[in-house]
């Protein structure tokens, strides 16, 4: 390897820093550090002339390690690193530190101490730089195709977007027809239009204006050339890596040839088997060969093989004019290779029969919102008439009950967020079609947040819909008349009401679609506490998952109304397109590496890795070693902190680099106070230190900051080593437990700190010398206070007495 030549570039921020830091002293000090061949000073180095100085030094003076002290390093580093890369030097041989916000500003009242700290910081950066190693960029191929799971409005919209962008899309729907819950809901708020219209695909030549919207069945959806629709199908297994997922799908037989069926209806007319129609909330019967509603997609009948008599009957085969019915169809297995997967599995109504006091099971006139939606739908089982299922007479008095199984800590603690609007929509639609219907809504709180939503509540009141603030305790049935009685207290009147009703409509909680858990297992995705798919970050990455290339949209993450679902679907499509578009994943090798000589047989790291990047493989000596995928590894180092055999290292944060840094930071004090090493994670911890400096908060200069990728990388012995190399106290500063950028790192660190405290006690060292702090980046004050607090604590404790050899 070439001789290490370090170039040090000191920015004085237009002479602002030199008012506090003695730059002559710094230069004189750095000049004598071994390996340093060049020192430059300028007002800034991250752009313009300053940046050119670095380029010239790399090219002309052949320096191969670049140490830059620059303000706002998190911004300036980007430019410096990119420019250095263009000169041909590996960009990971650059170390940028911040003498402004980490030293000059927070210690401006003690300039001499600040200068001494700056020396230590520069030394630490140089020592680390000397040990840095070049890191390569890797490329992984990405197939330009996607799998969309779920054919509701979310899945269809995503599919349209992705096919429009030119990707190959496979849309898998477990039901025989597309449309999902939306198709059953009939109409949507806040526009009151059909649920099942979508933004048509670009391939639809008749779409003249961009404002046009169309029903799925006339949108040309099925004719999109690069769209492969698989209904009646489910995902069996998914293997592979981001960019190349191998998917196995089971396509159940339809028994009707999609290419031959002409929708003549002869088969359904002749079919002798009748069963209650689940799709229409059992409000009518259907045949064994059926179509949900006339405008479904695909427009082809399906045979329900759980009830069909097949060859014992075969009347439909005889009558079909195009020989479309194929009773001998079998399940087929379809294998696909796709680059990306979008989960759009949606949600469904909670089973209200669990709430015994509402008698959903026993009283036929107690129905749910979805059944009511079917009645309101002109295509539905009652042709738009609202009936009592018990005798099919018109329902004149309707009571609606909100929050059935939601906001209920016995069943689903969350608010399903859309049910108030659904009930208001239903009530208004019924009231406008049948103004003499008496409708009462029993609610706990009416929640109509969202654009144009409050208007629904307003309109409902105008229409004369009644509201009772109270959750009914029970639905009773008059044994003689069979009429329902809803037992409720109107809390506002403090009055007990027994509401008489023909029909009681429950607004059940919305829960994840059936099969969500199984699919999560197949995909390796996590579910949240409410059993919905968990997004990577609800604020910044609402459609992404922890797994690259797998996205979520629509109700799969939480119940959503149509506008939000649409928004979510478009967003997921953009994310997937961004991932698929270049045909490759470029990723540097700032990842973990296993020393197979030390590694053996334990299973800690694969379990701990938040990204599933580690697998165990057997070696020739017949023991298991960990193998880390450079594609999946995010370089946090949680595995490093977990490995009991010190067999894992991060290429960009090796133990020797960290030790050299520690030693350097502790080698110069320059203050009368005890030295403190603050080990900060590169995310919230380190940026909180930035914030403290930016806001010019003051804390003592004996506190020295060392950056690690994530506090999860820490090993107990490393913490102890800090004391050995001169620290009187150690702060570990990480993200908040639920806000760790690497999921589990800061929790792991907390446990390590506890353990280290126990060991310190064993060694006769006060455990209070070590403390973990958690903060978010804006909490600079918290860091400054913590630094002050620990310094005062250490002063009280007095100097650390290390036993010889400990």
């Amino acid at each position: 390897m070439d001789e290490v030549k370090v170039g040090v570039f000191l920015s004085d921020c237009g002479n602002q820093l030199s008012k506090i830091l003695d730059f002559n002293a710094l230069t004189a000090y750095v000049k004598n550090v071994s390996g340093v061949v060049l020192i430059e000073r300028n007002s800034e180095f991250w752009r313009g002339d300053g940046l050119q100085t670095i380029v010239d030094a790399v090219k002309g003076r052949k320096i191969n390690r670049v140490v830059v002290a620059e303000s706002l390093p998190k911004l300036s580093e980007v430019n410096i690193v990119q420019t250095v890369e263009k000169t041909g030097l590996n960009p990971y041989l650059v170390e940028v530190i911040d003498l402004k916000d980490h030293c000059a500003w927070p210690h401006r009242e003690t300039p001499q101490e600040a200068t001494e700290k700056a020396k230590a910081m520069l030394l630490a950066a140089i020592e680390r730089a000397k040990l840095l190693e070049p890191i390569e960029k890797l490329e992984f191929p990405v197939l330009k195709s996607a799998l969309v799971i779920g054919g509701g409005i979310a899945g269809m919209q995503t599919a349209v977007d992705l096919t429009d962008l030119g990707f190959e899309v496979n849309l898998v729907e477990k039901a025989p027809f597309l449309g999902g819950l939306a198709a059953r809901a009939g109409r949507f708020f806040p526009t009151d239009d059909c649920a099942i219209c979508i933004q048509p695909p670009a391939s639809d030549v008749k779409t003249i204006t961009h404002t046009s919207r169309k029903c799925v069945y006339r949108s040309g959806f099925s004719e999109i050339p690069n769209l492969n629709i698989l209904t009646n199908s489910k995902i069996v297994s998914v293997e592979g890596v981001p960019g190349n997922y191998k998917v196995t799908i089971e396509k159940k037989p339809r028994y009707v040839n999609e290419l031959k069926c002409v929708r003549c209806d002869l088969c359904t007319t002749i079919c002798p088997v009748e069963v209650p129609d689940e799709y229409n909330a059992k409000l009518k019967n259907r045949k064994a060969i059926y179509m949900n509603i006339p405008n479904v997609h695909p427009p082809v009948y399906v045979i329900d093989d759980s009830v069909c008599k097949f060859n014992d009957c075969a009347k439909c085969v005889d009558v079909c004019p195009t020989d479309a019915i194929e009773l001998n169809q079998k399940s087929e297995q379809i294998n696909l290779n796709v680059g990306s997967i979008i989960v759009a599995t949606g949600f469904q109504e909670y089973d209200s029969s669990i709430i015994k006091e509402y008698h959903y099971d026993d009283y036929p006139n107690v129905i749910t919102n979805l059944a009511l939606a079917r009645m309101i739908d002109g295509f539905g089982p009652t042709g738009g008439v609202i009936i009592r299922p018990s005798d099919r007479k018109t329902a004149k008095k309707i009571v609606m009950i909100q929050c059935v199984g939601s906001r209920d800590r016995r069943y689903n603690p969350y608010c399903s967020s859309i049910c108030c609007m659904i009930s208001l929509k239903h009530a208004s639609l019924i009231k406008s079609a049948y103004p003499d219907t008496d409708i009462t809504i029993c609610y706990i709180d009416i929640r109509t947040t969202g654009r144009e939503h409050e208007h629904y509540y307003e309109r409902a009141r105008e229409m004369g819909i009644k509201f009772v603030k109270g959750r009914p305790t029970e639905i009773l049935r008059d044994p003689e008349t069979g009429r329902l009685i809803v037992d409720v207290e109107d809390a506002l009147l403090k009055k007990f009401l027994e509401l008489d009703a023909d029909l009681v409509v429950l607004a059940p909680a919305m829960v994840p679609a059936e099969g969500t858990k199984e699919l999560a297992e197949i995909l390796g995705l996590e579910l949240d506490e409410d059993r919905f798919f968990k997004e990577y970050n609800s604020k910044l990455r609402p459609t992404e998952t922890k797994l690259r290339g797998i996205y979520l949209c629509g109700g799969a993450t939480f119940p959503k109304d149509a506008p939000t679902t649409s928004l979510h679907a478009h967003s997921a499509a953009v994310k997937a397109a961004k991932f698929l578009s270049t045909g490759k994943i470029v990723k540097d090798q700032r990842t973990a590496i296993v020393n197979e000589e030390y590694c053996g047989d334990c299973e800690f790291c694969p379990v701990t890795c938040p990204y599933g990047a580690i697998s165990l493989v057997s070696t020739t000596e017949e023991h298991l070693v960990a193998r880390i995928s450079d594609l999946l590894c995010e370089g946090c180092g949680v595995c490093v902190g977990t490995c009991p055999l010190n067999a894992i290292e991060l290429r960009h944060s090796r133990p020797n680099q960290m030790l050299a840094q520690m030693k350097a930071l502790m080698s110069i004090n320059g203050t009368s106070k005890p030295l403190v090493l603050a080990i900060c994670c590169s995310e919230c911890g380190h940026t909180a230190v930035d914030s403290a400096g930016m806001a010019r908060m003051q804390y003592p200069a004996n506190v020295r900051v060392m950056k690690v990728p994530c506090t999860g990388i820490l090993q107990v012995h490393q913490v102890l080593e800090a004391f050995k190399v001169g620290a009187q106290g150690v702060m570990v500063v990480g993200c908040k437990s639920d806000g760790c950028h690497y999921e589990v790192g800061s929790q792991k660190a907390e446990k390590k700190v506890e353990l280290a405290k126990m060991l310190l006690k064993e060694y006769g060292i006060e455990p209070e010398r070590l403390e973990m702090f958690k903060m978010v980046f804006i909490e600079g004050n918290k860091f400054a206070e913590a630094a002050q607090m620990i310094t005062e604590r250490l002063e009280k404790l007095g100097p650390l007495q290390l036993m010889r050899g400990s």
Partner: protein
Amino acid sequence: MEYGKEEKTTNLAFSKVVTSRLGGETISLCYQCGTCASSCPVAKITERFNPREVIKLSLLGEKNEVISGDAIWLCCSCYNCQERCPQKVEIADVIYALRNIALEEGYIPNIYSEFASALLNDGRIVKVSKFVENKRSVLGLPPLQPTGVDALRKILSATGFDKLQQKEEESE
């Protein structure tokens, strides 16, 4: 209702006091849906008791109204409310917690203090009357034996029950 008129600090403190008591822990989960009220057989027949209102007043810190009134003593402990509460507020248990607070502050309906004295003196809540004794002999049941009142007193003293009773007598 006169909430807000009292000193703010006492108001806020009261719901915390209830939360810190055995049985009172879940009170703050209440979102006033009224399931308890419509489940309550007592509330249906008298306006003097409404579990939803007792909880609301406690949360608002209306301590005096809650503990000096007779509402909390009207709960019949059927637990229907608790069974159906969607927020798992242990309503009947909250009411027990409120009764204990009331007792400590010297508020107890006469009937309850009579029960307590009877228990301390005879080891029975209800005194054994001649009628009962006759009835037993008619039915061929053996006469009731004296209770182990000394042992019971020890237990009641260990739990602090006797002190509560004294307090009640002092305040009378």
